């Protein structure tokens, strides 16, 4: 290992280096900034993310390995990094006014978001179970703290406590699975695992056990059944911009890892895991869609909705192959726009003492704020999968991939659940449009929030109308 190789590795991981070193610097900068001008940290964080995105663009188009094959930069990683950049930028923009309303304006907030971003980028680029584990933990530890950032709020404390305990348990399960994989194959590198698996009998009990542990660990991270119980409580208790961030960023990074681990390293053992994942996907869809029907808190409802969306993405994994991977990638990308959008709408409702978390709070919104209600309508229709919004395209390609791979029954079940899920999205739309308002609506629409909502709205509509370019992007990025 010479100096030249080290430099090349460093340059290959330059976006991660930028994000993590900038986060460390911002921790220091924060000490020298007067209270009340913390927006500077937000702008510097935005600049960092944009700088990292520029680095990722510069590296795009080539496939390189670094750090003895533990870290890989390819189209797949680049695609998912773009999704997590997007989620982070939107979260920062939406946080700027929210953390003032909640009186939790501290520089560490943005720094932790950047650390979480760094972890997600390492997850997307991880080509070894060790680097994937480290990325996962960097992301998770930052998000645990962010969940409990409203220190004086009981719900926030409780959410963080539940999250950290259940998260640690899932990490334990995942690590035990990794240790079994290491014992079976003698390596933790994904490529070498794939080679070693070809010498192992498919019915090996230890292999089945290892896969079950791995699936359980990863299922927790994307809040899939039966490891979804943490999601509603954590989503409800966390500061809303963090809820928005968690429901998009870590979930996208989790899917990046799941796709790479199962369709690359464990592709040879697919007859074992494909049935398990299919069952998990259907049950996740069922739980998410059905329980969301009875929620009265919009954050809890969106938590169940995001559980259901994880079910669709898992179905793309069941479809497998290049089409399956591309459909999951497109799904995650579109989901980022629409989910950040609807959470953004919930965030701007929070102003002064008004919380705006009950679904009933949106009664008659269209009479008072027609433009804002229309934007929410677009996001809700997109989440429900109604054309011509992007959400329809996302579900459509998942169904296409399922049917092409011969899983027609799964496609039919998924379509049925999406019809059930449409009900609770449209219930909100009905409250907004069909009922008379009971009071005024004082929205916290700062310029930053407007920009964020504008980006989400534009993404949701444009991808819905011109999906082919985005689908091509996903297809050429498949590993």
């Amino acid at each position, binding site marked *: 290992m010479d100096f030249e190789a080290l430099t090349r590795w460093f340059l290959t991981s330059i976006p991660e280096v930028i994000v993590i070193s900038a986060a460390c610097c911002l921790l220091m900068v924060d000490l020298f900034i007067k209270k009340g001008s913390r927006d500077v940290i937000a702008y510097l964080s935005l600049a960092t993310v944009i700088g990292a995105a520029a680095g990722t663009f510069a590296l795009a188009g080539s496939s390189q390995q670094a750090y003895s094959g533990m870290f890989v930069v390819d189209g797949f990683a680049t695609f998912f990094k773009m999704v997590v950049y997007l989620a982070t930028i939107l979260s920062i923009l939406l946080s700027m006014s929210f953390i003032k309303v909640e009186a939790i304006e501290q520089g560490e907030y943005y720094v932790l978001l950047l650390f979480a971003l760094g972890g997600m980028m390492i997850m997307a680029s991880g080509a070894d179970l*060790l680097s994937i*584990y*480290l990325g996962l*933990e960097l992301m998770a*530890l930052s998000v*645990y*703290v962010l969940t*409990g950032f409203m*220190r*004086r709020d*009981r*719900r926030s*404390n*409780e*959410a*963080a*406590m539940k999250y*950290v*305990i259940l998260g*640690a*348990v899932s*990490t*334990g*399960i995942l*690590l*035990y699975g*990794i*240790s*079994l994989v*290491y*014992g079976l194959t*003698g*390596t*933790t590198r994904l490529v070498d695992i794939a080679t070693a698996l070809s010498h192992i009998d498919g019915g090996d009990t230890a292999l089945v056990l290892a896969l079950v542990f791995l699936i359980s660990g990863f299922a927790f991270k994307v809040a899939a059944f039966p490891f979804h*119980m943490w999601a*509603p*409580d954590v989503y*409800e*208790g966390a500061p809303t911009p963090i809820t928005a961030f968690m429901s998009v960023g870590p979930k996208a990074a989790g899917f990046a890892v799941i796709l790479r681990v199962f369709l690359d390293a464990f592709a040879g053992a697919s007859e074992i895991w494909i049935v398990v994942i299919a069952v998990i996907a259907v049950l996740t869809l069922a739980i998410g869609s059905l329980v969301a029907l009875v929620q009265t808190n919009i954050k*809890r409802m969106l938590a169940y909705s995001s559980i259901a969306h994880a079910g669709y993405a898992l179905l793309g994994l069941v479809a497998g192959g290049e089409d399956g991977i591309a459909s999951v990638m497109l799904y995650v990308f579109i989901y980022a726009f629409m989910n950040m959008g609807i959470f953004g709408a919930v965030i701007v409702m929070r102003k002064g003492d008004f919380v705006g978390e009950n679904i009933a709070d949106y009664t008659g919104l269209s009479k008072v704020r027609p433009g804002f209600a229309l934007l929410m309508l677009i996001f809700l229709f997109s989440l429900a999968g109604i054309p011509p919004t992007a959400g329809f395209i996302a579900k459509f390609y998942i169904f296409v991939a399922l049917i092409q791979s011969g899983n027609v029954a799964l496609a039919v079940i998924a379509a049925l659940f999406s019809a059930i899920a449409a009900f609770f999205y449209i219930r909100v739309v009905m409250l907004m449009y069909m009922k008379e308002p009971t009071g005024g609506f004082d929205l916290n629409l700062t310029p930053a929030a407007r920009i964020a909502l504008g980006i989400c709205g534009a993404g949701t509509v444009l991808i819905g109308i011109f999906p082919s370019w985005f689908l091509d992007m996903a297809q050429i990025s498949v590993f």
Partner: protein
Amino acid sequence: MIPLSWYVILGAVLFMIGLSGVFLRRNILVILMSVELMLNSANINFVAFSHFFQDLRGQVFAIFVITVTAAEVAVALGILVALMRNKRTLKVDEITIMKG
């Protein structure tokens, strides 16, 4: 020379003790200790396999796990302190105000 299977069995037993501790005990500190058992059972596996294969990868992994776990426990205890300031209890059932 202790055979590999003994280590693996020890790891599996520790893992099960940890997992049942998480689900059966109601004190947050005890739950955190049980989680530690689960993580350490994975470490035993890593080190045992590493010795068996004469490959350093597993030991490196175990060292990383120990480091990250230390950070994780620090975060968990920090959150616990914040929680204790608002409600002076360590019982899981008394903390819950959100349903689910």
